[in-house]
């Protein structure tokens, strides 16, 4: 039996009344016209003045909306949502050396943060050690420098790795950094089966948006599947991919593009894992997602609700998953860095609060709130505390976590959720026709779609059609602000420390371990050639991040930015 929400006679009556109301509206506009020629979301999706049951008249409650924890998960992935457990407050943190970042971790935990998230510096993100000529001037600037297992040990000193879950934003070298994490945890006496956390490990969005580029797409996917396969067998509490829309959005995509390209990246990973011979229900439950929460409040909530429903339908229909857990789009959210301004930076607190509220109403599992000074630099302690307190005020004071998915049934939010899904599905059809995401990336398709959106938005800002307070409305200067300073001297100290480490280790053992890694990389992708066991041996023996990544680069080749604009 269907569960339509309005009877035909009710719809008929509302239709009639709506027409009459529209006439009233037109009349009223003659006295006082609308403020804008066109009302649209930050993604430039045009919206009407009013939404009514007419906009959701075809919706079937059980099929399209349903109950929390139940297919299609529109209302949330857990049955109890925030009534039983709040989202994890997980602040992205990394600065300078491993010791400085460890100090920041303890500071955040002491102020009530409930999960860790590591920001690595650019050399680490790109698979270079601090002593690489390509790393000059970068050490510790945008995150923490990690070259060796000893750095990893310093990073997590005094933190119980079986109690706290750790998310690590690392992509092409994800397997290496994960191996260091596991190896360090084992050295400290923890069991790999009890470790919980996430590696971002989403190579496709690197080509599309974030541009942390190392290997060509095909071998990048092979390494991703190796980590999924290893996690499924050996580290069952670990999320092996965080399929990320965040960076796609920051690069200028619309909400629909973020949704569509990210879901399609997810489809690609599932296909690759199935090709390896994995059973979809054995691994899909450990795939997680990462969304941006941008400044347009309702659009973001609709996007997150649509993401859950889309992923559930895709996993059930396209991949024939049986286990409900395989169908759950569990996700982390970060508020939109690109919505912040250097002008009047304290206004960023208000922007971030609104975006965090959207993430909560969108049903996130964990959340990072940006600090007011992140436009300039890695946040100061002062600024990061306000950002964490923002989440705590929303969690404990405001009452938004008391009721599950409170915006369900809003005519506007439901209609917008539908539209997000429909428009994203258009892209998915198109990507299918193009032969999949790798083929699309090679044609520069998602990259140029995003570049077009970014340019369009910038032009709208220039014309004043999109408003940014402090920039094109009530413009203001960039003030001097007390921001965190990274001492350039740490680069020299980190290099010295790395060189001492290299002298101390057993070189023959390192070489043997790297040879084994190379043999596996050169071999056919399969469990016997999975890189993870070899990497864990290699980093335990003292191989550095770059030494492992150099094996990758030598075997698989490198990839350079096609530089399209």
């Amino acid at each position, binding site marked *: 039996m269907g569960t339509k929400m309005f009877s035909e006679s009710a719809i008929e009556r509302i239709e009639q009344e709506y027409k009459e109301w529209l006439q009233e509206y037109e009349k009223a506009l003659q006295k006082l016209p609308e403020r804008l020629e066109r009302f649209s979301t930050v993604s430039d999706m045009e919206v009407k003045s009013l939404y009514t049951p007419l906009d959701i008249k075809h919706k079937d409650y059980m099929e399209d909306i349903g109950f929390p924890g139940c297919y299609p998960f529109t209302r949330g992935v857990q049955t109890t949502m925030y009534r039983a457990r709040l989202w994890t407050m997980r602040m992205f943190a990394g600065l300078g050396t491993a010791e400085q970042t460890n100090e920041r971790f303890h500071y955040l935990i002491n102020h009530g943060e409930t999960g860790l998230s590591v920001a690595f510096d650019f050399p680490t993100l790109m698979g270079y050690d601090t002593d690489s000529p390509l790393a000059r001037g970068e050490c510790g600037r945008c995150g923490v420098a990690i070259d060796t297992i000893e750095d990893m040990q310093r990073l997590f000193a005094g933190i119980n790795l079986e109690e706290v879950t750790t998310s690590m934003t690392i992509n092409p070298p994800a397997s290496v950094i994960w191996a260091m994490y596991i190896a360090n945890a084992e050295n400290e006496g923890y069991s790999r089966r009890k470790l919980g956390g996430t590696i971002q490990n989403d190579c496709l969005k690197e080509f599309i948006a974030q541009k942390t580029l190392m290997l060509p797409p095909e071998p990048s996917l092979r390494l991703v599947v190796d980590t999924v396969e290893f996690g499924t067998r050996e580290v069952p509490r670990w999320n092996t991919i965080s399929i990320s829309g965040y960076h796609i959005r920051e690069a200028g995509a619309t909400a629909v593009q973020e949704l569509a390209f990210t879901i399609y990246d997810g489809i690609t990973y599932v296909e690759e894992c199935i090709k390896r011979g994995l059973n979809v229900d054995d691994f899909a439950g450990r795939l997680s997602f990462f969304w941006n929460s941008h400044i347009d409040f309702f659009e973001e909530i609709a996007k997150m609700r649509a993401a859950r429903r889309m992923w559930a339908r895709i996993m059930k229909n396209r991949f024939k998953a049986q286990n409900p857990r395989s169908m759950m789009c569990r996700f982390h959210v970060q508020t939109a860095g690109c919505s912040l301004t250097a002008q009047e930076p304290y206004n960023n607190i208000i922007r971030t609060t609104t975006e965090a509220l959207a993430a909560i109403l969108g049903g996130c599992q964990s959340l990072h709130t940006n600090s007011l000074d992140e436009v300039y630099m890695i946040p100061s302690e002062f600024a990061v505390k306000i950002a964490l307190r923002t989440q705590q005020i929303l969690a404990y004071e405001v009452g938004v976590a008391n009721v599950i998915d409170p915006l369900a049934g809003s005519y506007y939010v439901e209609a917008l959720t539908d539209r997000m899904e429909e428009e994203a599905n258009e892209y998915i059809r198109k990507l299918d026709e193009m032969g999949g995401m790798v083929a699309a990336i090679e044609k520069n398709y998602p990259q140029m779609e995003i*570049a077009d959106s970014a340019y369009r938005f910038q032009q709208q800002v220039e014309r004043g059609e999109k408003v940014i307070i*402090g920039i094109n409305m009530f413009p203001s200067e960039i003030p001097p602000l007390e921001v965190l300073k990274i001492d350039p001297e740490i680069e020299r100290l980190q290099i010295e420390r790395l060189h001492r480490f290299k002298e101390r280790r057993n070189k023959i053992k390192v070489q043997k371990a790297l040879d084994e890694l190379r043999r596996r990389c050169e071999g056919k992708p399969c469990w016997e050639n999975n890189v993870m066991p070899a990497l864990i041996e290699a980093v335990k023996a003292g191989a550095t991040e770059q030494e492992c990544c150099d094996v990758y680069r030598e075997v698989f080749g490198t990839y350079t930015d096609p530089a399209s604009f």
Partner: protein
Amino acid sequence: MGNERKLRILIAKPGLDGHDRGARVIARALRDAGFEVIYTGCHQTPEQIVQTALQEDVDMIGLSILSGAHNYSFPRIMELLRENNAEDIVVVGGGIFPLEDIPKLKAIGIKEIFTPGSKLEDIVKWVRENVKPRKAAA
């Protein structure tokens, strides 16, 4: 005649940071304004940038950087331009810079620094007013 040649501009991303939204938007805006634009893509060393600038015979280099590593890459690029007798190429920077770094960068010859919130229109105007085609190499 020579003055009518379109200005040639290199937009370059030094260092390892991949934040290329700004660089690509600026590249398009300059192209739409009628300049010839070459974009390097991400992850360029100072040596690669200067080599491209010379090969492409550009009149201006726009360096986009958001990682904070400008205090290494910018001086190195200026040094390489001088070594190659190309110090008349106008060099500007765009991205995130601590306010106290800006005078230091200007002192080494960076002509202008464009910070977050800069208007495309103003950047185009600045280029028109401040960059002239280089005299052909002897």
